[in-house]
């Protein structure tokens, strides 16, 4: 089998996978945050990522090096997330989850279309010019921009987790996630917490998107795969399991790269969505043995 006969191919896939997976993990962490705190599945997650990417791309188009786009992407999406929460999302927070799925889905469609109208439907990248290094006698290529993304993702994740532990807002968020009613009684402004949580998630997506723009490619319609990836990661790892989310993100990245080598890049998206179904069915069948079901 090709996997066994080509150790370098394996290593390449693994490295590429971990590096793209770190971005998935960042986005997944954001989704877990919103899901855990507000019980909302943000279907617009992927669109926030791509939009963040386009912001960085715009910076790049202005002649500035794209890494300076990162703070802009984060900030823009942070503010947008906050605004969208205050206008739309707050209305569906306490309703049936399907309502919030549809509402965020509506938002995702609108963002998709705006991106299409403003940036066009060709594939774009924000070139960093970081170059590549070659290892093992040119058998492994390591695009330095991917390494950069990996490092930034990890730092970003650690920063947010630290923020959650230390800061006042972070603690308010965690309290609200555990018991919103108790938090309210203790004086926490839960609406504010929700708004900032949603904004932080959007910001994280924006940052991730910035990395995507530099490392991979942008297109108005590739948001949904990011949403689905983060959803998969969260359900594999479980909502409260932060190290699990990060690990699963890396794992999914690796799995995707391997599958791309095996069955071809053109099946990547089909693979992701099929994997989602397979994981869900497998999980539910396993739980059914205990006469339970996925909640």
């Amino acid at each position, binding site marked *: 089998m090709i996997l066994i006969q080509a150790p370098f191919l394996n290593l390449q896939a693994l490295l590429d996978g971990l590096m793209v997976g770190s971005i998935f993990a960042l986005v997944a962490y954001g989704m877990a945050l919103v899901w855990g705190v507000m019980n909302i599945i943000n279907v617009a997650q992927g669109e926030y990522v791509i939009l963040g990417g386009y912001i960085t791309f715009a910076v790049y188009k202005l002649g500035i090096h794209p890494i300076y786009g990162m703070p802009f992407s984060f900030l823009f999406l942070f503010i947008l997330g906050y605004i969208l929460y205050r206008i739309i999302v707050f209305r569906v927070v306490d309703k049936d989850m399907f309502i919030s799925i549809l509402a965020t889905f509506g938002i995702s469609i609108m963002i998709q279309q705006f991106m299409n109208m403003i940036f066009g439907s060709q594939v774009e990248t924000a070139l960093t010019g970081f170059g590549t290094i070659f290892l093992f006698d040119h058998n492994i290529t390591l695009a330095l921009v991917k390494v950069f993304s990996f490092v930034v993702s990890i730092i970003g994740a650690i920063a947010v987790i630290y923020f959650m532990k230390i800061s006042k807002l972070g603690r308010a968020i965690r309290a609200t996630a555990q018991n919103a009613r108790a938090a309210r009684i203790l004086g926490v402004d839960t609406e504010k917490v929700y708004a900032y949580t949603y904004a932080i998630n959007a910001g994280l997506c924006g940052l991730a998107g910035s990395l995507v723009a530099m490392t991979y490619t942008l297109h108005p319609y590739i948001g949904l795969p990011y949403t689905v990836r983060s959803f998969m990661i969260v359900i594999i790892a479980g909502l409260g399991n932060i190290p699990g989310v990060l690990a699963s993100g890396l794992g999914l990245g690796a799995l995707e790269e391997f599958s791309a080598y095996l069955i071809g890049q053109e099946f990547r998206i089909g693979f992701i969505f099929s994997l989602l179904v397979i994981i869900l069915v497998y999980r539910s069948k396993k739980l059914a*043995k*205990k*006469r*339970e079901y996925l909640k």
Partner: protein
Amino acid sequence: MTNILEVKNVSKFFGGVRANEDISLSIKQGSIVALIGPNGSGKTTLFNSIVGTHPIDTGSIKFEGKELSKMLVHEIPPLGLLRTFQQTKIYGQMSCMMNMKISKKVSNNYFKMFDTLPKELDDEAELILSFVGLYEKRNLRAGELSFGQQKLLELAMALMNEPKMLMLDEPTAGINPTLINGIINRLIKINEKYNITLFVIEHNMRVVMNLAEHIFCMAHGKMLADGKPEEIKNDKRVIDAYLGAH
């Protein structure tokens, strides 16, 4: 008199928690039996174990000689065993009458799914609803009933399903104290007139003493004592379990 239900050495662990440990009991057909014990002693878990809500870790459960422990939840009511819930479960958006009509026992034939509900069902439903005192409220949405009224509806729905044995989880909890005598009366009537065996979890000692022919007492997941009401009332272990329980 045969044993309609036989529970032998049933254990159920949730991780490290021993919710049910080596529980054995048997219930004579046609009797009224109570299950008492302080909160957290594993009574509802035992109910869940019997009707298949979760699989059991050890032991056997036989209803009329048939082994229940490997069956799925929906396979058990057709055998004649039904349970009601501590936190009421009813079809909230549908009217009480609808709740009743769907609860009618039907054959397992695939094509029966497409039968229209017969008119006679209405009469039967109304009869049982009056029996439990809910006739006036029969057209209201079930979700609009109070907690206690929902308990009555659950009882009525269970009766609609022609059970041989009913397992009731705290049937008088949340019921207006003035109605409790009426409930006791109804339960005794169900048992006498329709020969339905009753297995009841109860915290209200007055109800237990007036209703039960036999009592099982659990504590800390184990079976503590069982016997006639007079024996249990004076059993030191039972008294300690309630007083000492936190």
